[in-house]
């Protein structure tokens, strides 16, 4: 029972972040010079990269995720990342499935391989994983140059953020994924890395997992100077720069100095090619005096226009 439940918690967290793993699959020899013709994507972050590489039109099936990018939103669904629909994938004549590593889906992945559908498990949930995925996808579609350019541009933008906080005293940051009990960003998460890039130090960095429960006493004792709370994704949830429920602890520097932010999780919790944008947003939250105030739209759920680019 407990095991089951623990597993479900893992699923729950995975659902928040949409993945975990690394991409050790060697680049497959392209069956044409131009890479696979018919592909399925199980995670939105992968679709975004394919979009930049100009191969979004190869997508014939999508997993269960939000309505972005819009141009593929109407395509047939082929199951969740942990429960791919093997039959549908075969009927759609899929060459490659881009998904994330999942124990639950491992048997289905083996079946797909037997049926000559290549399964590529990408890790788009961590900072390094995003760059690895970009490189791997570039290789698979024979668009290595394009991928390199994308990665280089992202790195430049990230370094730009890092440069702006160079020498500025780091602020202690608490990044909240869920409240009651407090579930926070820990080491190994892209959030931990983004906080560091944006001139902060994650007070949960000595936890033992990327996302983990943290003792309330430890939170209070570590005196966060900025609190970023993405615990709720409901449309009517509290948004903006205000203490909210954290106001109870009025002695915390974050509360005293008005640096408690209530943000929709879609802004920061799911990584991908938007990492530089996320780093900038993180900068605005941790050091508004350097990066400027966040826009009102920065607090709200991401919306995508018809072309699939984030607004």
């Amino acid at each position, binding site marked *: 029972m407990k095991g089951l439940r623990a597993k479900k918690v893992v699923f729950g967290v995975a*659902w928040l972040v949409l993945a975990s793993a690394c991409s050790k699959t060697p680049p497959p020899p392209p069956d044409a010079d131009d890479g696979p013709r018919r592909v399925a994507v199980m995670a939105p972050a992968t679709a975004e990269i394919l979009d930049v590489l100009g191969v979004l039109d190869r997508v014939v099936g999508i997993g269960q995720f939000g309505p972005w990018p819009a141009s593929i939103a109407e395509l047939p669904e082929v199951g969740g990342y942990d429960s791919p629909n093997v039959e549908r994938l075969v009927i759609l004549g899929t060459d490659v499935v881009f998904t994330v590593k999942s124990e639950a889906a491992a048997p289905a992945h083996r079946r797909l391989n037997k049926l000559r559908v290549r399964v590529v498990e990408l890790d788009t949930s961590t900072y390094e994983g995003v760059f690895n995925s970009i490189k791997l996808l570039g290789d698979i579609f024979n668009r290595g140059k394009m991928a390199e350019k994308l990665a280089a541009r992202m790195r430049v933008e990230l370094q730009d953020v890092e440069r702006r906080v160079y020498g500025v005293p780091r602020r202690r940051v608490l990044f909240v994924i869920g409240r009651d009990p407090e579930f926070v960003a820990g080491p190994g998460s892209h959030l931990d890395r983004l906080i560091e890039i944006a001139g902060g130090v994650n007070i949960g960095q000595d936890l033992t997992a990327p996302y983990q429960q943290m003792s309330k006493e430890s939170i209070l004792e570590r005196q966060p100077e900025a609190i970023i709370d993405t615990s709720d994704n409901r449309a009517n949830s509290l948004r903006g720069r205000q203490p909210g429920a954290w106001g109870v602890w009025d002695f915390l520097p974050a509360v005293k100095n008005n640096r408690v932010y209530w943000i929709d*999780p879609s802004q920061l919790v799911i990584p991908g090619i938007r990492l530089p944008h996320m780093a900038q947003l993180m900068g605005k939250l941790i050091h508004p005096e350097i990066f400027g105030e966040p826009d009102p739209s920065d607090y709200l759920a991401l919306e995508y226009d018809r072309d699939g680019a984030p607004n």
Partner: protein
Amino acid sequence: MVHRTERLTGRRVLIVTLLLAALLALCIGGGIAFGAGTVNFSSLLPGGSLTEVEHAILLQVRLPRVLAAGLLGGALAVAGVVFQALLRNPLADPYVLGVAGGASIGGVVALLLGLGSVGVMGGAAVPAFAFAGALAALLLIESIATVGGQLTVYSILLTGAIFNSFAAALIYFIQSVASLQQLHEIVFYLMGRVPALGYQELAVLALAIVIVDLAVYTMCRDYNALSLGEEGAMLLGVDVGRTKRFTFVLGSLLTGLCVAVAGLIGFVGLVVPHMLRLVIGPDHRLLLPAAFLGGASFLVLADLAARLLLVPNELPVGVVTALIGGPFFLYLLRTRGRNYAF
């Protein structure tokens, strides 16, 4: 083994109760003294003063949490004693039986219907639904799982497994309809944790638990007689039907209340009454108050372990009680099961 020497007297009940109360005070002291945050207790001496952070950690985080753990542990142990007396089987713990599972289903349904949030002040809806779920589960267990009037170990395991796995399966469904924060709350809720309650909420909880416990206590001699079987109890003048009905309701109230506030904390009602019976005997006039104090001590300590083992991380206390209670349950099943109506 300290075996009772003569008859049970009020004096003996008083002495044992006071001893256990002292134990509980010790546990509460430990629960307050230790935690993830550091508090310099020397500043409590005259002339010293606590910092704002220490003050908050001590009075707004640690103390209410220790008190909540005590109340919940006491209530769960009493619920265990009550179910064991009623079903005449020492393995009948609210969690093992599936009554807690039924309550959690009720509670989660109330959450999903948007009728309130977890916690006493979240409104009466969650406790009410949890109570209804507990009662429904108990009636179902009573009606389908008794063979020859007595609950067999196999039927206990079976109904428990069904209800608890059903409760866990609910998560799959919830993932598709709940918001992130709801999902988060429900996941942790089903793992069992001592909630962060305010003092006003604690007072409401304490009042409810004390009232139910006192009502249960009025039937303590009937529970003794029930150990001779339903017919045996009737022959001693117990109105068995009435006792059963009241106990069903009161036991479900206790379970529903605990589950509504804290989720699924398992095995407290199994481990504590069993240990106590070995030391002080099975007489319910002593066992009931002892179970409350013993259960309170047990959960305060289990929660202390949950808070301290992985600082700054924190374990759900349900994980700690299951780590202790699971093996204990298997041991009981293996060594004592044969004595208790297979």
